[in-house]
């Protein structure tokens, strides 16, 4: 993985440029980046060059008919630039157009077919079928683009095709499905029909081990990227699932928003310049969590991995209010 740049900066006013507890990003056909913010809910739209374009589904309601979110968790575009957002408390899928206009919603609480108990990850295949991780029901449900239930698979457990609080999900270019089986410390691969293919990872901090993976992404060469949430890193595997490398993060300041912030906050800029932002820590703080809490460049709280139209990997960090981009 080669670091390219970072997009982001905290915006705890929840309006305008910047992110607040971002937890997922997706790309429209024109390449604009849509970031889902779970702190002061909203979707912000910006370019790769950090030009802030607009926001919608805001916590404050910025236009008539705006559909507010409750506890949004993931978002994804279909081939028609329709944006799908899961909301784990509303137990629903909200749909917006690329301009941010609310179109529709479906789903309700329950454990029957088509019902949800904490929907989290969502992905869309080449035929616009929608796969939703139904977190507390420990299953994946497949829907048509119109929201019609097709089938589901999974139940609570740790055998193949079973789940324990699954979180993220993605589809590769052959429409295979990958699920971050969060509390089983593994990623499972399935066919588009829900047939188990293989499982990746066992519990631990070693190079082929995982602690609570939150999401997974697959690039055009079928390399697999796993956000190893409990180890605060991204693990890279080849298409067979063989370990390639891992990355702890190397964020720099952004070329736009943060640089401008420091131009008007010189006291912070000057003292920051004489600081070591990746310090050695006392023994009792030598865990990935504490290291990330004390080391700004490192990943902290990765909730989403996304691949853009140029095969670049976007790593969204809920706790650092930013997205690190790699190729």
């Amino acid at each position, binding site marked *: 993985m080669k670091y390219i740049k970072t997009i982001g900066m905290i915006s705890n006013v929840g309006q305008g440029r910047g992110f607040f507890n971002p*937890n997922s990003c997706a790309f429209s056909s024109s390449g604009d980046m849509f970031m889902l913010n779970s702190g002061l809910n909203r979707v912000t739209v910006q370019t790769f060059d950090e030009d802030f374009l607009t926001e919608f589904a805001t916590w404050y309601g910025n236009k008539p008919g705006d559909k507010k979110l409750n506890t949004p968790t993931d978002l994804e575009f279909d081939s028609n630039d329709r944006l799908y957002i899961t909301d784990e408390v509303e137990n629903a899928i909200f749909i917006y157009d690329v301009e941010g206009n609310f179109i529709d919603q479906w789903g309700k609480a329950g454990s029957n077919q088509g019902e949800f108990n904490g929907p989290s990850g969502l992905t869309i295949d080449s035929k616009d079928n929608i796969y939703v991780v139904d977190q507390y029901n420990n299953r994946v449900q497949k829907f048509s683009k119109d929201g019609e239930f097709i089938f589901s698979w999974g139940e609570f457990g740790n055998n193949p095709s079973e789940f324990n609080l699954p979180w993220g999900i993605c589809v590769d270019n052959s429409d295979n499905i990958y699920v971050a089986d969060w509390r089983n410390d593994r990623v499972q691969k399935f066919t588009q029909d829900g047939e188990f293919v293989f499982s990746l990872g066992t519990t631990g901090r070693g190079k082929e081990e995982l602690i609570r993976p939150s999401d997974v992404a697959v690039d055009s060469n079928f390399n697999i990227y796993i956000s190893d949430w409990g180890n605060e890193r991204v693990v890279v595997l080849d298409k067979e699932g063989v370990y390639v490398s891992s990355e702890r993060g190397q964020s720099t300041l952004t070329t736009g928003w943060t640089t401008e912030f420091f131009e008007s906050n010189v006291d*912070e800029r000057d003292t*920051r310049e004489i600081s070591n932002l990746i310090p050695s820590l*006392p023994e*009792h703080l030598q865990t990935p969590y504490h290291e990330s*809490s004390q080391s700004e460049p490192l990943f902290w709280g990765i909730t989403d991995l996304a691949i853009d139209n140029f095969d670049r990997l976007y790593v969204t960090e809920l*706790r650092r209010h*930013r997205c690190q981009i790699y190729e």
Partner: protein
Amino acid sequence: MSKPEIELMAHLIRNAGFGETEPELLARCKNSYTDNLEFLLNPGDPEVMPQDIILRMNGSLDEGPGTGASDWMYRMVTTKNPLEEKLTLFFHGLFAVAYSKGNQARSQLNQIDTFRRFAFGSFKDLLLELSKDPAMIFWLDNNENVSGNVNENYGRELLELFAMGVGNYNEEDVKECSRAFTGWTIYNMEYMRVKAIKDSFSPFGRIAWHFEYRDHEHDHGEKTFLGEKGKFNGEDIIDIIVRQPATARFICQRLFQFFACDKVDLKGADVISEMVRNYYESGYQIRSVMRALFSSDYFKSLATENCRVRNPVELVVGALRISESISTPSPAITSKLDTTNFMGQGLLRPPSVEGWHEAEEWIDSGSLVERVNFVAKEFRDSSQPGIKKLLDSFIGHNQNISSQDLIDRCTSLIGYVNLESKTKESLLKHIERKCIDLDLNSKQIDISQLPQEFIAELFSLISITPEYQMA
């Protein structure tokens, strides 16, 4: 087991923990008092709500004062090691640091972890860790304490509020103590200081703190402290402090008042003397001191029953543990935390370096209303799993019991609350009125005919009595 045995266990758990229900107490009573005490003093796996679940459901929980405290509240409500959390709470009050200055909930939670890690260990080790704790360093300006420009804030409070008490040292000792802690600061101090003062999240959120010793900022000269001379550094100062009789007396009395009785009478003073003896014999181990307290005949005689006002956090946590209304991460935790704040004890937000004014000062007209309303609501809510379990214990008991027995049954179920006769009389009248309404014989009440909501209401009424509000 006999009723006195259960009552003694209830007394222990109310003070060493947060109180327990009758079924929990009966389970404990399968082992001896001593065995239970040793279990409390040597805790194993706390089996608290898993941190990964909390973080997943609550996002960046440890960023703000309220949300950061909820992380700890979840732990207190679910722990199997109540004394460990209670001691942690004690040290949070004794070594009071508030969010308002550093704006660093993550570092405060790290401090709380430190109190937990050293809760049963050596007081010397704890004071040393406290002196290196970044939240404390920033709170009392020790990051400004450098050779040639001494800041006495930490040195003074260490002696006055944390370890010895006024009258056991002089101004010169404060100065020399402070000189010894020059150079004890936080890493990236200059940047962290600017961010804290401006309460700046930017650009990428908070950066948590850790300790740094800057030798070039330390005063290496000779010092005279409490009658001893040497080129003391901070470690030497702590070593001298913990040897002082005033220190032993100070920490033992504070522990006695927090865990046994607000006021110290003559017999209580004897217990404190025994605690002091154990302090020295064990090499300053808090575990030994606590063992001496809870093993004392004075404590076991129930002489200290109901002579200590429950602090707001233990009152709220105790009720939540019984009602089981918080069993998974939930936004409701915020309102529970707010309640402790309204009662005068905001976690991570003590009012000053002096900590909270305790004992009778927990009670004023405003806080009393909050205390009464909170527990009454928790105990009255028959939909909560814990309350439902207690109510279910009446099912199948189709026997006729007197109003008096009904009260005894209810007080036992919620932790063997020892009501005074005047309080009982009021409750009896209430039951009699209800029986008239329901056309029941109050001298022989058929429990199956009594609405569960009414029994929950009795729990609720018992919880608002002075006897329940005390420990």
